[in-house]
């Protein structure tokens, strides 16, 4: 069944973004309304698409060189993408609604909603893409939107810098991604997923080439999904408005990397070497981010590192050759992490943009609904049965246990840390006494913000059940294999929770001071040093060379030399007739010699 529905789903948000930018950017209320309406409409389209598994859509030829290179703008509509569509547009719609409340009085509201809609467009594009180049196109557009949204409050230097950092770090990943695409194209002659599959032997027959290509493609995911070593942009990205953090940096955009890896799983899983690298990258990220999260004071930073850590799980799952487990975790994580961020957003908004958890406290009483929903999110995140996170994390742990015990150990340790830092957050924020005037006077958030919280909380509870998740996903079979794993995992969680509660109950300030963790393993400092000592140094050397050697030395030197030579030649012109006669004589004799005697 061919239908234009996917096109509508894709283009509606773009249309709204264009409309806002061109016409209604002065009317902030109307703009936000257009945006929300278009995203909800898009969500309904997605739901319809989801209900019709046999749907196809017309495609459009973006670029074609006869027999050499073809890039269509066409859609893949398999189960994976349909699930992802619903997820992305659904959460997107919720966050649009939430933003109505959160950004109510922002002066850049129109711009904000335009960017948000544009983001939806790009994200849906990634999900639908049926080839590498198209995916890359939307991949980059997503990067642009995240740049715009992070830099929404561009007056703040930190926001401006964070926006740049996000974009450039992503570009670094895309650098590898593009080379990977080129290599695949070179080997198979196509960038369209469906055309690559039959040609896959052409690339798998050359293992070194294959591994390189796969790892380069993985680079894209490393950038977008903020894996070590390109994870640095995500925590900084929290400078953006909180709904943005929820939407982009928790539920959807960062998941794009995982989605992409699953989408090209047919390729990735042919290279065991690459898979190992991927798995370890995920593991390292998971552990490292969790460790850092334990020492952060900014509520959004904690959640950001938590996101990193969870993304690490997903990548780990991909690396352990189970796209299903990765997608499952992605699915559940989207709900509870969005929930957590939105909850944090409520807290922040109600406390006049205070983000330091040590300035909060006692919010369980002031903001009860937020407290409840936030707690559900936390429980889901730390993997407390029967919340959704339990099921998906369990699947990954089981997977790791089957494939690599060392990774399993680290994953378990991460689970422990997750419980630790989340409970730390809960205890400090919601219990005890308010530790600032803003915390004392806080009140429950408006309805537009609470509605998404409630909906998301419901999903955070139920999304892990077979009956719900099974409708959307092919569930990983690992979850049923070994029954001791859940017990061990829950044990780790409980242990982490208790440690955190004991440690942070009734504290007024941070009792631990682990500088290494607080300063995020000094990665930012290292990068700053690295950039300063390589790129900036080279840039300065190049600039110096250009200005003084090529320009002054080469160009001006030559022209100066010409000038000088000219001035020297002029010296013949001394004005004295005798000298002229003499030079004339030299000329005569010289030319005669030249002509006769040589």
């Amino acid at each position, binding site marked *: 069944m061919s239908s234009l529905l996917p096109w509508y789903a894709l283009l509606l948000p773009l249309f709204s973004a264009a409309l806002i930018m061109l016409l209604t950017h002065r009317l902030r209320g109307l703009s936000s309304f257009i945006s929300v309406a278009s995203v909800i409409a898009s969500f309904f389209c997605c739901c319809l698409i989801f209900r019709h598994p046999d749907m196809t859509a017309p495609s459009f030829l973006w670029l074609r060189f006869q027999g050499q290179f073809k890039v269509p703008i066409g859609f893949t509509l398999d189960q994976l993408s349909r699930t992802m569509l619903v997820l992305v547009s659904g959460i997107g719609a919720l966050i649009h609604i939430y933003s109505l409340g959160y950004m109510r009085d922002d002066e850049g509201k129109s711009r904000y909603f335009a960017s948000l809609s544009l983001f939806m467009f790009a994200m849906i594009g990634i999900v639908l893409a049926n080839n590498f180049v198209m995916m890359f196109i939307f991949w980059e557009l997503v990067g642009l939107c995240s740049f715009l949204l992070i830099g929404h409050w561009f007056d703040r230097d930190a926001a401006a810098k964070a926006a740049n950092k996000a974009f450039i770090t992503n570009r670094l990943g895309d650098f590898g991604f593009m080379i990977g695409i080129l290599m695949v194209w070179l080997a198979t002659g196509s960038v369209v997923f469906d055309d690559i599959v039959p040609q896959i032997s052409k690339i798998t027959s050359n293992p070194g080439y294959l591994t390189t290509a796969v790892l380069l493609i993985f680079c894209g995911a490393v950038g977008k999904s903020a894996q070590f070593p390109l994870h640095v942009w995500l925590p900084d990205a929290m400078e953006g408005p909180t709904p943005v953090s929820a939407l982009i940096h928790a539920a959807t955009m960062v998941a794009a990397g995982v989605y992409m890896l699953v989408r090209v799983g047919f390729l990735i899983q042919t290279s065991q070497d690459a898979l190992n690298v991927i798995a370890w990258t995920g593991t390292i990220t998971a552990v490292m981010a969790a460790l850092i999260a334990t020492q952060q004071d900014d509520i959004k930073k904690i959640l950001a590192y938590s996101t990193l850590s969870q993304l690490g799980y997903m990548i780990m799952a991909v690396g352990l050759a189970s796209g299903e487990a990765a997608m499952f975790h992605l699915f559940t994580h989207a709900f509870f992490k969005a929930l957590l961020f939105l909850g944090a957003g409520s807290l922040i908004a109600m406390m006049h943009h205070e983000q330091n958890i040590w300035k909060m406290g006692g919010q369980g009483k002031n903001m009860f609904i937020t407290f409840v929903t936030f707690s559900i999110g936390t429980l889901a995140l730390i993997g407390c049965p029967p919340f959704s996170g339990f099921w998906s994390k369990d699947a990954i742990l089981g997977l790791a246990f089957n494939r690599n015990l060392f990774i399993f150990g680290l994953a378990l340790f991460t689970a422990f840390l997750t419980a630790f830092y989340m409970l730390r957050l809960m205890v400090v924020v919601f219990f005890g006494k308010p530790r600032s005037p803003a915390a004392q006077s806080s009140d429950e958030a408006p309805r537009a913000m609470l509605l998404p919280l409630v909906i998301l909380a419901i999903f955070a509870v139920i999304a892990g059940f077979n009956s719900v998740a099974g409708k959307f996903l092919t569930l990983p079979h690992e979850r049923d294999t070994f029954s001791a794993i859940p017990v061990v995992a829950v044990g780790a969680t409980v242990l982490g929770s208790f440690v955190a509660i004991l440690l942070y109950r009734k504290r007024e300030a941070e009792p631990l001071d682990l500088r290494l963790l607080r300063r995020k393993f000094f990665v930012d400092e290292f990068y700053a040093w690295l950039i300063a000592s390589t790129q900036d140094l080279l840039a300065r050397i190049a600039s110096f060379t250009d200005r003084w050697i090529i320009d002054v030395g080469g160009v001006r030197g030559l022209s100066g030399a010409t000038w000088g030579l000219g001035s020297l030649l002029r010296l013949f012109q001394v*004005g004295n*007739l005798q000298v002229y006669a*003499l030079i004339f*004589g030299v000329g005569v004799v010289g030319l005669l010699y030249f002509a006769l005697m040589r």
Partner: protein
Amino acid sequence: MITLGHYLGASAVLFAVGFAGVMLRRNIIIIFMSLELMLNAASLSLVAFSRSRVASGLPNYNAQVFVFFIITVAAAEVAVGLAIIVALFRARRTTHVEDISAMKF
């Protein structure tokens, strides 16, 4: 035996003397005389060549006609040249080349 070479040699020496005079002397009038020497040296060669190219028992008179022209031109040149030198002397009270180098470079 006197050959063409003798005359040419004599002419060459005279020419070189004139040439040297132009380059070495600083009095414009004497430079001018040296130029006359050069012209006359050329005429001498010409006449010698004319004498050596005998056709039907006569020297080649074309060359002698040319010499006639040379002498005429030289005379006219001397007249104009001396007029200029006079004018210069009136203006600057000098005939010395080193004194007339207002324009240079």
